[in-house]
């Protein structure tokens, strides 16, 4: 009997520990990747909102835009397209205490091309 060999129990335990650790560590990996994705997404959305606000302030007429994953504008059918932005017709929202609208406001829906992520934002515009 070779006394230097691992017993089955030892082996099973080691594998179990290894598996547990591996699973838990590997289980963190998607979270890390998700954090990274979210960070990229937030950064991109910031750029997107800034771009849309600039365009709307400049009174460019538009109803939809496309952006890549860095938040840069894309052409139509660009394979790099990562976000679709749809812009609802501009409405005027009232000031507090008012009933008639006076502040032009645009509502944007930013939607990831791949996946189900989508979020709405409102931007106030110069009257």
């Amino acid at each position, binding site marked *: 009997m070779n006394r230097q060999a691992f017993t089955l129990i030892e082996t099973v335990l080691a594998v179990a520990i290894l598996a547990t650790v591996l699973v838990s560590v590997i289980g963190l990996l998607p979270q890390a990747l998700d954090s990274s994705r979210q960070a990229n997404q937030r950064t991109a959305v910031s750029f997107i909102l800034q771009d849309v606000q600039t365009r709307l302030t400049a009174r460019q007429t538009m109803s939809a835009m496309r952006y890549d994953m860095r938040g840069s504008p894309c052409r139509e059918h660009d394979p790099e397209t990562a976000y679709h932005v749809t812009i609802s017709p501009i409405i005027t929202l009232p000031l507090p205490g008012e009933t008639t609208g006076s502040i*032009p406001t645009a509502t944007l829906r930013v939607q990831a091309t791949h996946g189900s992520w989508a979020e709405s934002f409102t931007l106030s515009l110069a009257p």
Partner: protein
Amino acid sequence: MVLTMLALLMILVLAALSTGTTHLRSASLQSDRSAAEWLRALPANMVKAQLKRATTQPAVLWTSQPGMIRTFGTDVAPGKDKPTALMHHRLYSAPVMNSVSFDASSETSAMAQWQDQLGLFVDLNEPMTNANGERQYPIADPARLGLTDGYALRDAAAGAVNGQSLPLPVAWMYLLKDGQLVMPTSRDSAGVHFDPTKVTAQNPVVARIAFWTDDESCKLNLNTASEAQPWDMPAANTLTEQGYAKQVPAAAQHHADSGHPAFTSLSSVLKHFGGGKSGTVQWPVNDPLDPLNHETTSWWSRHLNCYQSLVPEGTVQRAGEWVSKQERHYSSVGEFYLDVNRNNNGLAKGFVLSTQDLRQADFLLTTRSNAPELNPFGLPKIALWMMPKDRTQRTLADKRLHALSALDPAHEFMFQRAALWQSADGQGSAQSMSADWTEVPRNRELYAWLQRMTNAPIPGVGSSFVSKYGERSRDQILTSMLDNMRWSVNTDKALPPASAVNHHSAVPLTLTDENGSVKSRGYGRFPTITEVAVVFAFTDVDRLNGAPLDANNDGICDRAAKLRAFLVLNPYFAANGPAPVSAAWSVRIQRGVFFNLADNVLLKLPGGNVRNRCTLSNTQPLPATGLPWGGGDSAYACFASQFLQPDGNPKLIGKREDPARDFPFISSSDVVLPKKYGAPATSIRMIESGIVIDLLEPNAPPGQKKPDDTIHSVEVLFPAQDIPMPKLLVSDFAKGPRTLDDRLKPVVVDGVMRLPIIQRGDIVRSMVLNANGPTGGDARLLAVQRSAVFDDGKDNGYFTPHPDAPPSLAGALAPPQVQSLRDGAYLVSGQYGAPELQPAVKASGSLLAKLQFSSNAPLTLKSALQRKAGDDPGGRLGDWESGAGVQDDGASVNRCAHSPETTLSSSGITAPNAAMPMTSAISFGALPSGIFGDAKNATPRPWQTLLFCPNPAGRTSSATAPGRFDSTTRDHFGFANPHDHLWLEFFWRPITEPSALSANFATEGKVNLNFQILPWTWLRRATAMHGALQGVRMAAIPSTAVDMKKASTPQNKQFRYTVDAEKTLAAFESRFDAGEVFRTASEVCDMFLVPKRIPGHDYGTAPDPKDLDAAGMTTWWNGSADDDADAFEATGDNLRESPYAQLYPRLCTQSNIFRVHYRVQVLKKARGTLPDVFDDTRDSIVSERRGSDVIERRFKPTAPAAEPVTDAAAPSLHTQQEFITISRERFGS
């Protein structure tokens, strides 16, 4: 090995996890900052929305001030005298942004405990400490409070605490995820609560904003203001006035041009820089004691030059010429720290300018301020300039002004001249009564447009000028204004030049209907006749053996035997003053041409078409003393041209062939007196004799009289009266009969050239303008008539026998020479007549019954200012004008000439700067407004001119109440609604030099009268108004000094005052505290300016205003209503209005530039908290941004150029504005 691998794997995974988390945090932070970044646009957008809503409505007047826009319509509620505000639009975050009513005190009290109401209010002025440990304030630095002019706390700042003495709180507004803005509904210990139907978990609060908007026109503009060099029309002969006369500003000295933004003084702020104190170069002290030298080497000069060198367009001297520096404008207040050579801006000028100075002054200074130049209807103002209709004749100045006063190249808002002066054969439209009307369609269009606007109730005022004056008087005022511009602006090429016989003259613009009847008329620079004298010159006596008979040897001839009569007219220019005029005119006598004495003694004058052409040029060199006899700037210019040929030689008496050579208006030959007449102490009866005197254009073609060839006609009826027989000296007739040939030969008496037209032994009877007639003695009311000829032979009462004649016009011992003929060439009394009979003092009477005017400054007319009781109960004093320099006071139409042109005396004429525009329509302040009465009473109102000040001589009501003209108080008709000053709002002066500060019907550098800060009424920032008032000088001449003001030598007396800004502006604040604002800039003319003596000057016995405030001003100016000579009654209407002329053009009540100070915070609700509650202690503020955005209100580039003059439906230009953010500044990191 496995463990090692596991450890490495774990490290890698954890590193990836950490990196992702860090990345996410970083991205979140960036995202939150970005959210704050795009959120910071929201306050500016809200303000733009407010501005758009408030300032782009048609038919609405709006006013701006820090924190608010108010709008006004035309409906006047019962019991009110003007419309109340339609709406108050707040420009700061508040629970209610727009409201019909507004109570500043309740607004203020609501935020008194702001610091205890976390979540409801926030301090926009919360300071931060920079790296140097210095406190920086985003809006207003309390360190300057009380240390800078006009910047102080009126009351304790609401919620001031240790460490923050100047909190500026406003309400938070909360932003929901869906973009809605909501206000908290309540607050308790749990936080601020919201309407749960609006604020939900799905639509939570995501941010909050707070903002307040400053009005940049309430700050001093570093690019347009400089330091004022006080200057005004000299109005007396004192050292200061002589200094004004000798130091007429050069065209490029804009800091001496009171209508220019450069006249506004930066010293209100800058004098406190670098530890400045009184006596340092940047701290202005009062006017120099010796004004004659102040331009050269004095401290005062260094002080002015210091400021001129600081500002981009300051005036500096280069190669002996005054020029503008024309440097690049500052783009921010901070840039002021360095000059163009990157050196400290103050250092070379004698003081230290620090960055801290500039930070602390940021609330007081600006580099962009701009105000609309639109009238109360939101339509373009008319430029106070006239240019030739022919575009090829326009000068560079014309073209610049055209560019600034047109919506499109074809439609300028400016009157035009039909033709310029070209030559003796091309006299231009100034010498035509109608060409500027009939040949210039644009003038008719603008006139009709002004009629249309003055027919309508004025927004913010509620009444119309036509409802006040009636159509005829309104049209008369408009015509007078147009006429006034014809001969007072841009006259360089339009009026005859100095080389012409009719130098600087113009005939009155006369508007007629289709039948030729005069509808309205101006005054021109053309004479009327205020006195007509007939001189009975006795040419021989009874003789015995050729020697005069003198039976009792008393040296007096026993009897006059022969005589001739000749006519002397006294021309009078209502448009007198600089520039000197030498009008050319012809006289024709019509109708009765006899002076008919008893027993058919006829003294026949030539009638028909015989004319006396009066064309003696002012520049014609004359023998003897060389006096400018052919004209001048006196009201009585051109007297001598009746008797002298164009070359200065005497005219030929009795000849009538050549109008330019002959003096025809003398009886044709000696007439023999019947034997029963002629003895001294007897008389002969003169039968009623009337003549019509026509004044014609000098070269009017001879021939029969034509209906339209007369420029001006007066009819004079000499009533029946006794003509006393003279005491003729034997010595005068010892050599034989006397001829009249020497009477027109100038002689020098005491160094003064005279015409001996009236001599010892003559009997003179004259008719003078009737102070009790329709004109009330106001010659302007005669000058404005084209024909003052009797209707149906009935005496119209314009003339009356000279008041020195005996009351019954009877008696053999009546004064022999009754006349007050005046020659504007010299300003001494007793100008005509035998020396022993010359009138001594008050040769022409007095304007004020109790005032004894100087003998060398006789006033123009007899006492006539007290209106007739039936006309104006109370007998209030009327309006007259102070003469320039030592020129006489009286009834003038252009004595508000505030352009830098003047004269000290007739012998020291300063050439006018003809290219200088009117600074404002206050130049129209001498125009009569009561020629045809008013809308309710067509009775003419003499001595009533347009009113542009609160202190006319006729005001008696308390200074604490507005001037009134109603059933209870009849101060001055100008006070009746709408106040006269609203005329000012239809005109403007575009600023083109040294750069185009005016553009798109707006002007840079104007100062807003509405300096009240809302909602922080405890804070006063009147600094810009202090700067505007700094250079203003008031003239107040006490009645006790009336004998001195026209003294022959300069007096060491002072009639000028500075404006006590603190006391003056205190009255402004009382107005604000009562909930009122200035609706138009012209309303400054309703406010008393409190005078302040200039230290070191001698004011004589004049009352010192040091203990008075605005409430005491009526009494200070006018004394007792029952006494016409107990205060400053010797001050003419133009001097009373002058400070307003110096001030008004630089003021505004609307702004185009606003700075939005904001504070925005991105919020995040804590988990597990109620969605409709925000708690500052539990929920989080994930990012914040503070700063300010500057918004400019300007014409849309694509705005349609509707032509409002011809298109009644054209919209207000206020509706065609856009709002642009022109700069952004961030506060803190």
